[in-house]
């Protein structure tokens, strides 16, 4: 690997931007492809799939055997609300290798006794969120049921283009939330990105089951091809 390539690779990794290094293992020829350049690349389908699966793989193209080495950032999960569901969701997400942070300004909820091993920020979203560097590789879940806390957090998630945004509440609750967010200037396309009611429909009842439904939905969003592409195929 050329030093220039290695430097570029490390810079992209530090910036939490995904890259794939393509190596012709017969002769060592190598190139680095940034995620933003995938669409224009001759290998775009292979690159997109490898990145979505987070899996390094071999492909044969025009008689050449190429190794695609995927460098994807560690996914983060930000949970707004140190509630009962979060107590189940945080350890589950950690077992799936997410970097988890729980945010809740209500100190009675955000106590280390309730969340022994999870980074916990007992601040309002406007203070807690900016230092977390919420980005595209972040799943964002708002479960306080309190608009004063959930709404500004969701606006932040829109701004940072999180790959998954979910919010707790029935269809009725969500319709009211959509109205409030619209009044605060949120775009329809952003509001449409909120998964609400949150989680896959698996008939979840207990907080732990709701946590499973949420992690199932996050996993599906991370790993499955986007819907419009499925239809086109």
């Amino acid at each position, binding site marked *: 690997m050329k030093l220039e390539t*290695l430097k570029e690779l490390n810079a992209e990794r530090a910036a939490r931007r995904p890259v794939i290094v393509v190596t012709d293992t017969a*002769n060592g020829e190598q190139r680095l492809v940034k995620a933003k350049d995938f669409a224009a690349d001759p290998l775009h389908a292979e690159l997109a799939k490898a990145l979505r699966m987070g*899996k390094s793989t*071999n492909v044969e193209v025009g008689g050449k055997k190429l*190794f695609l080495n995927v460098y994807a950032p560690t996914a983060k999960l930000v949970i707004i609300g140190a509630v009962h569901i979060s107590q189940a969701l945080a350890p589950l997400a950690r077992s799936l290798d997410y970097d988890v942070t729980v945010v809740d300004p209500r100190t009675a909820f955000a106590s280390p006794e309730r969340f022994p091993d999870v980074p916990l920020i007992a601040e309002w979203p406007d203070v807690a969120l900016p230092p977390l560097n919420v980005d595209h590789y972040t799943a964002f879940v708002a479960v306080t049921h309190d608009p004063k806390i959930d709404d500004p957090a969701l606006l932040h998630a829109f701004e940072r283009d999180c790959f998954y945004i979910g919010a707790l509440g029935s269809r009725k609750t969500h319709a009211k939330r959509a109205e409030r967010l619209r009044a605060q200037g949120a775009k329809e396309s952003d509001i449409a990105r909120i998964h609400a009611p949150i989680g896959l429909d698996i008939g979840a009842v207990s907080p732990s089951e709701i946590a499973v439904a949420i992690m199932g939905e996050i996993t599906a969003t991370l790993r499955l091809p986007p819907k419009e592409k499925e239809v086109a195929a």
Partner: protein
Amino acid sequence: MLNRDEDILKAAEDWQKAGHGVALATVVETWGSAPRPAGSSLVINDEGTFLGSVSGGCVEGAVVTEALDVISSGQPRMLEFGVADETAWNVGLSCGGTIRVFVEKVG
């Protein structure tokens, strides 16, 4: 799963900048019950210091030896370790899997 090799590649860059010869060994293919997935890597410098893992300890010794050759020759090479391979028994990939490891010089 998503998190791996975090500091290893940075170490490779730092070693190279400090004037060391450096090689990068990467698992490119696995069959059977290989201990580390494709994409796992090991970085080696010209003093034989290494970081990371390609097999959880089974074949690192052999990879480091080959890597030192690659650092001096500059030519990349592909290594294969598995139960069907006499030398693999010697270095002990006893888990029953087979792995291919691509070794290249950095710089």
